[in-house]
């Protein structure tokens, strides 16, 4: 655990300092946060787990892809695991770019690909005491190869 996957509450400030850059005019930050309902069912909290070493590798690769495919100047992605309360961020994605169009596109790519490729699972805990793993996306060996990348 470390740079990409952590059990600690996520904080934006260190990521902004790491990526501080006077050559960028746009800074996009995406936070995924724990929502209080899913498909109409009241949610109480969320537990995240990961295949940590592989997830760190995938997020590191995603950062590089955002820089290369979208002409971003910096990209940092961090995902939390463990038990999260409502409203807490599960993931933060920071993209800095010279111009804003690249920042929006790169940030969107990062979260869309993360959801397809990062070996991370969430288990919703409901207000009624029940819990369940959410249906997910089967991992594909070819995911993320340049020739198959999404637009």
């Amino acid at each position, binding site marked *: 655990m470390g740079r990409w996957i952590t059990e600690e509450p996520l904080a934006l400030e260190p990521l902004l300092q790491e990526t501080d850059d006077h050559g960028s005019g746009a800074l996009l930050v995406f936070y995924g946060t724990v929502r209080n309902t899913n498909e109409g069912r009241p949610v109480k909290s969320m537990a995240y787990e*990961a295949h940590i070493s592989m997830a760190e590798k995938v997020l590191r690769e995603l950062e590089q892809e955002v820089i290369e495919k979208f002409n971003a100047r910096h990209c940092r992605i961090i995902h939390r695991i463990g038990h999260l309360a409502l409203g807490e961020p*599960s993931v933060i994605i920071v993209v800095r770019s010279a111009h804003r169009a690249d920042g929006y596109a790169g940030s969107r790519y990062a979260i869309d690909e993360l959801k397809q*490729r990062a*070996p991370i*699972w969430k288990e919703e805990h409901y207000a009624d005491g029940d819990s369940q*793993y959410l249906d997910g*996306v089967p*991992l594909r*060996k070819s995911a993320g190869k340049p020739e198959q990348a999404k637009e």
Partner: protein
Amino acid sequence: MKINVILYGVLKQDAGVKRHTLDLSSDPATVRAAVSELAAQIPALAARLETVAYVIDDEIVDPDTILHDGDQLALLPPVSGG
């Protein structure tokens, strides 16, 4: 030979264990053969295995990949991060 299987997410929940050691009679054996043996030993997993990804050393591998004694084979159900 012995293979260490590591289960994640709903697989871990259904199996009731995070790790399971498989003692395979054939050596070498493929990932496919190991997973087949796992389904026989833990029937609760059988229905899940169609959508599982096989991972060795942080890389997704084919079912035809050859396993060696002591390998760690991670089984990853469909992912839901973010």
